[in-house]
């Protein structure tokens, strides 16, 4: 064999190795995703009557038990709805102003508490165990939620004008300021609203099960309502950003703030509007999340986590990204807790991390993220 041939084989070998190294993560994650799908759809075995052993799961595969599969799917979609409402506000503010609003979780919780207290005041019958849904009319849910959204919008606007406006561009400093505000807000909320978990009551008209006529699923109407509200908010935001003049300025501002400002647009007004809408979405999300789950100390941190995960997966500043991120988070968290082997369902939190890790490994800026 000549020297040239030897070098050629050497180079070929290295090329193959490089290719293997490059595609290994793709192949591994692809295999993991395919296995997860197969597991949920056909492979999972249901637990016996005496309890779960080995890798048996609570429900069994989708083929075996389509009813629970469909219910889990709907659970995933509806949680994704709330995640989207909360995270869309976060991503709107970040996309335009590059402000990471770490007080978003505290805004969520405060919005929830405002809606809760208003609802109790409207209904008038306060008891230690909260209100029964039969006591609550639809407007007694909707009006408190909208007022909470407006209050939180004004609070966010105030925070932006007082603390953030004058240090535009100092991203870390702004993030630290919002962290300081979230510490103060969280502590004051414990002082004023107590340390016990409470929840907002759904109105009586929504609090029932609906026969879907598919595989015998009876599903709670409140969760379907959440999904409808989330889709409605998503559509409204999309129309606002795509079709109106303000939306056009915001989209231009996301791409190049200075240029928009140089063209004579009052960018400060646009910032103020975006901050108001973004915070109001957190407040409304708080009312929605407070009815869907509960309100209490520490809840703000969980919802900040959901917002962060959603926008990190979807790409910061992208509305479509927030929708996709919320869907992935909702589906992965619900399916992992339902379809892990029965004795190990508490490991489901790892799957949120795995989801994040897979996305970050391939797209460090998120699925729809663009460099700043």
């Amino acid at each position, binding site marked *: 064999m000549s020297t040239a041939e030897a070098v050629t084989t050497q180079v070929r070998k290295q090329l193959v190795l490089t290719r293997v190294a490059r595609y290994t993560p793709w192949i591994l994650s692809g295999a993991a995703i395919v296995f997860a799908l197969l597991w949920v759809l056909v492979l999972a075995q249901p637990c016996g009557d005496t309890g779960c052993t080995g890798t048996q799961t609570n429900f069994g595969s989708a083929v075996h038990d389509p009813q629970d599969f469909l219910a889990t799917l709907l659970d995933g979609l509806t949680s994704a709805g709330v995640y989207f409402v909360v995270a869309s506000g976060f991503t709107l503010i970040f996309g335009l102003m590059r402000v990471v609003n770490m007080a978003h979780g505290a805004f969520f919780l405060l919005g929830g508490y405002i809606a809760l207290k208003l609802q109790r005041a409207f209904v008038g019958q306060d008891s230690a165990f909260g209100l029964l849904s039969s006591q609550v009319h639809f407007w007694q849910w909707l009006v408190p939620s909208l007022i909470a959204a407006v209050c939180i919008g004004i609070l966010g606007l105030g925070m932006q004008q007082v603390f953030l406006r004058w240090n535009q561009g100092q991203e870390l*400093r702004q993030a*630290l300021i919002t962290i300081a505000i979230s510490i103060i807000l969280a502590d004051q909320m414990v*002082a004023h609203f107590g340390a016990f978990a409470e929840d907002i009551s759904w109105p009586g008209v929504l609090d029932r099960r609906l026969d879907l006529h598919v595989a015998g699923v009876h599903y709670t109407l409140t969760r379907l309502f959440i999904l409808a509200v989330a889709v409605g908010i998503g559509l409204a935001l999309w129309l606002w950003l795509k079709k109106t003049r303000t939306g056009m300025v915001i989209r231009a501002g996301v791409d190049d703030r200075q240029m928009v400002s140089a063209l004579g647009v009052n960018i400060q007004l646009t910032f103020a509007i975006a901050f108001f809408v973004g915070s109001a979405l957190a407040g409304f999300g708080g009312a929605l999340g407070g009815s869907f789950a509960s309100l209490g100390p520490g809840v703000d*941190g969980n919802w900040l986590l959901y917002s962060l995960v959603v926008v*990190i997966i979807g790409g910061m500043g992208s509305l479509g990204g927030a929708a996709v991120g919320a869907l992935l988070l909702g589906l992965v968290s619900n399916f992992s807790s339902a379809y892990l082997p029965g004795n190990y369902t*508490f490991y489901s*939190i790892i799957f949120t991390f795995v989801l*994040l890790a897979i996305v970050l490994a391939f797209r460090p800026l998120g699925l729809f993220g663009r460099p700043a």
Partner: protein
Amino acid sequence: MSLASNELRRAPGIAIGLGILISATLAPLIFDTYWISFILTQVLLLGVAAASLIFLSAYGGMVSLAQVALYGTAGFVLGNVVTTGNSKGLNLGWHPWLGVVLGIAIATAVGLIFGALASRSAGIYFLMITLTFAVIANLFFGQVTTFSGFGGISGVRTPGLIGEVDTHPNRLYYAALVVAVLVYAATKYLVRTPFGITLQGVRDDPVRMSSLGYNVPFHRMIAFGFAAFIASLGGVLFVWWNGHIDPASIDLSSTIDLLVICVIGGLYRLEGAWLGALVFVVINNYIRSVPGLGHIGLSEERFHTVIGVIFLVIILLSPGGLMGILGKGHELAGRLFPGRQVATSAAPAATSRRANGGPTP
């Protein structure tokens, strides 16, 4: 400028450092047991954890919120390995020093994984991603009953060298002091090695370093691993000191507390770690004795409101924290008395530049 005058300019700093070290060594003779066992030991171990954050922020340009989670990981591993059956977790009942080694090794490995995932982002993205890791770690230890569960692990034994913390508080104090000094020295040494210089290059201009052929994500990952190592030392000390670790020790509020310590001390100077920890712990312990606070609705339980306001004021006034204020005072003194050869070191200038947004990713 000659080398000799350079050395001369650093002399006041060295003198202050030696003074602090000597008084810290003699502290058990001066202060009562409460101060030693409760306040100063806590300051030293929180300072070690804070130093891991400040190292990343000052020399790597990465503000990480995952340090408390890593410190907790070391603590949980230690707890799982050394307890003997009376507690939650695995209860392996192995030798205490083996627990320490495993705790540090596993936390460092987890740190390298976190670092590898977060290393391609910087600045504000890094803050968000590491915060996510922190919250996930907290939920993990809260939910997975195999390793801890909600109640946490108690009754963690210390090695014979440290002994019972209640009866021999000074031993743990000196252990924490030794670790703190070693961490400080090792970090100061590391940032002067070629690796440390490259890391500072990556902090200042990742794009240029990348085009010069340096592997930017790799340097960030290794720096993150080193910081995880320091944080895990803090975690081991914390578990020895506390005897107990539970998910609440690493929750969002504790994560933010460590950030508060670093910001109060100064995110751009390593010394700020212990200064911030001292201020934090002292405020936490003595807030009830401040006259007049009760009249404006602030009491001991509202500690976090007070600390939040202090945090806010410090960010608004001096992004470099207390060390930044000290540095500015030093600079001012140099300007007012130019005859005195006062060091106007490069650090405050660099601080203000980075605080003003710094290199955007």
